């Protein structure tokens, strides 16, 4: 059933009790043409674009938990594309272009709000960095405005411009913003199922069957399944899946946490992030402040971050916004993120034939969801990455052609 004003009115006569389920729970079939492992936004999106644009008919998405229960539903929902390097700019801006039409494409309101993102500069070095990146953005056709201190103070009147972390300026991307994170997973799931994709929840992959160097099947908690091509799209378990297929990855899995405050009246109409003092904050439509910072520096699969990291987040936040100092923080949570040496993702082929991987998105995969899914669908369908995905191959760790965004872009990625 299409979501429309007409159907909204029609369903109101039956007290909204007769809406169809957005997606069903089909049984796992014995054989598929393509299986996507991982039912987050990237995986569901991959299945959607495979069915819609590349004509693949028999697709399943296997999710070990439930749709929207992983990192897709745990992040701080920031979307931007003001990356320094050409390769990253192309990938993330492809995503922003798709974000702009996503709600109508999926017939599902993902609440994409282009409220603008201010990347703060606190020192002369920071000003030089944002200026360099701003000009790099211009050259790549990405909107960027380099603001001075007065311009920032005018836009964000309650920010402390002259405190311990003086604000000298900011890089503004107006097309950046936020989206409703779990709506992205739900929207892709519903749209993918409408195109015939089987979404199998509570189905964990336990083994990968390989014959003569080619993937032929998967062992799951719901039985074994034969398959022609597999796309691995995990969030925090890339190394575990790669281990099943007999190869290792240049990845460390670390905890990343975020927290939200009690809801308050509208006070912050943009996204603020600061690379130097490690905090980013926006206000959700419910009124909560959504706050995040850097990841912990040790490997863990525990899904909880360390307490001292919360202090590292809060200290610069209340220094920049003294007005927030008496707010109570309601919830904090951690997720596991897979971090690569250059903080750029891995998209492409693996040492196993017909087994493809899209992982290593680290602390900033959400913003790339549609772009990542779109280029990965093409990679799986054609067996070769397209021009946007090609620089992010696993092979770059042998050739040395890293896309080193670790120092160049913001901490939040």
């Amino acid at each position: 059933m299409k979501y429309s004003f007409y159907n909204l009115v029609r369903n109101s006569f039956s007290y909204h009790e007769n809406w169809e389920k957005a997606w069903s729970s089909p049984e796992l079939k014995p054989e598929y043409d393509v299986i996507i492992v991982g039912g987050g936004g990237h995986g569901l999106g991959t299945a959607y674009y495979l069915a819609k644009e590349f004509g693949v008919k028999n697709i399943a998405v296997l999710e070990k938990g439930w749709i929207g229960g992983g990192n897709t539903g745990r992040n701080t929902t920031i979307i931007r594309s003001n990356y320094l390097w050409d390769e990253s700019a192309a990938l993330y801006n492809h995503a922003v272009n798709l974000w702009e039409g996503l709600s109508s494409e999926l017939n599902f309101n993902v609440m994409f709000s282009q409220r603008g993102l201010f990347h703060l500069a606190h020192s002369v070095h920071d000003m030089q960095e944002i200026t360099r990146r701003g000009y790099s953005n211009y050259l790549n056709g990405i909107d960027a405005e380099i603001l001075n201190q007065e311009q920032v103070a005018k836009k964000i009147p309650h920010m402390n411009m002259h405190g311990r972390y003086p604000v000298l300026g900011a890089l503004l991307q107006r097309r950046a913003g936020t989206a409703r994170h779990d709506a992205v997973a739900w929207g892709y799931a519903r749209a993918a199922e409408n195109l015939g994709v089987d979404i199998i929840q509570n189905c964990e992959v336990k083994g990968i069957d390989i014959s003569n160097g080619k993937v032929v099947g998967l062992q799951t908690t719901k039985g074994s399944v034969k398959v022609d091509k597999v796309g691995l799209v995990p969030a925090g378990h890339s190394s575990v899946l790669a281990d099943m297929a007999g190869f290792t990855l240049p990845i460390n899995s670390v905890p990343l946490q975020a927290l939200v405050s009690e809801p308050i009246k509208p006070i912050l109409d943009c996204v603020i992030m600061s690379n130097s003092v490690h905090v980013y904050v926006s206000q959700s439509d419910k009124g909560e402040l959504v706050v995040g910072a850097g990841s912990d520096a040790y490997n863990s699969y525990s899904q909880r971050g360390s307490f001292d990291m919360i202090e590292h987040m809060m200290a610069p936040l209340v220094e920049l916004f003294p007005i927030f100092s008496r707010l109570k923080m309601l919830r904090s949570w951690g997720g596991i993120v897979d971090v690569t040496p250059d903080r750029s993702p891995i998209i492409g082929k693996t040492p196993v034939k017909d087994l493809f991987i899209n992982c290593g998105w680290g602390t900033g995969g959400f913003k790339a969801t549609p772009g990542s899914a779109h280029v990965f669908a093409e990679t799986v369908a054609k067996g070769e990455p397209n021009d946007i995905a090609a620089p992010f191959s696993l092979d770059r760790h042998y050739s040395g052609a890293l896309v080193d965004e670790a120092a160049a872009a913001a901490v939040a990625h």
Partner: protein
Amino acid sequence: MFVIKCPYCGERDQTEFACHGEAHIARPDNPAEVSDEEWGEYLFFRNNPKGIHFERWTHDHGCRRWFNVMRDTVSDKIIRTYKMGDQKPGVQDV
């Protein structure tokens, strides 16, 4: 948060320490001769296990010395700490 037992100073709060990734990675003896694949494996590829992990830490805000930690990455429980150069403990030592 952990309490970490520095082999030199005893038990201290985790905030005094910094983690530096997987331990017991040997630099190839002949860098000029190894292939790009072998060098890439040495530089970047890591075990990243869900379970027992051996890693290097430093006591930055203490004795500033390096040591190794054997830790479970699922529970974050530290199984033992030992000095650089000591034999890598086996899982049977747990």
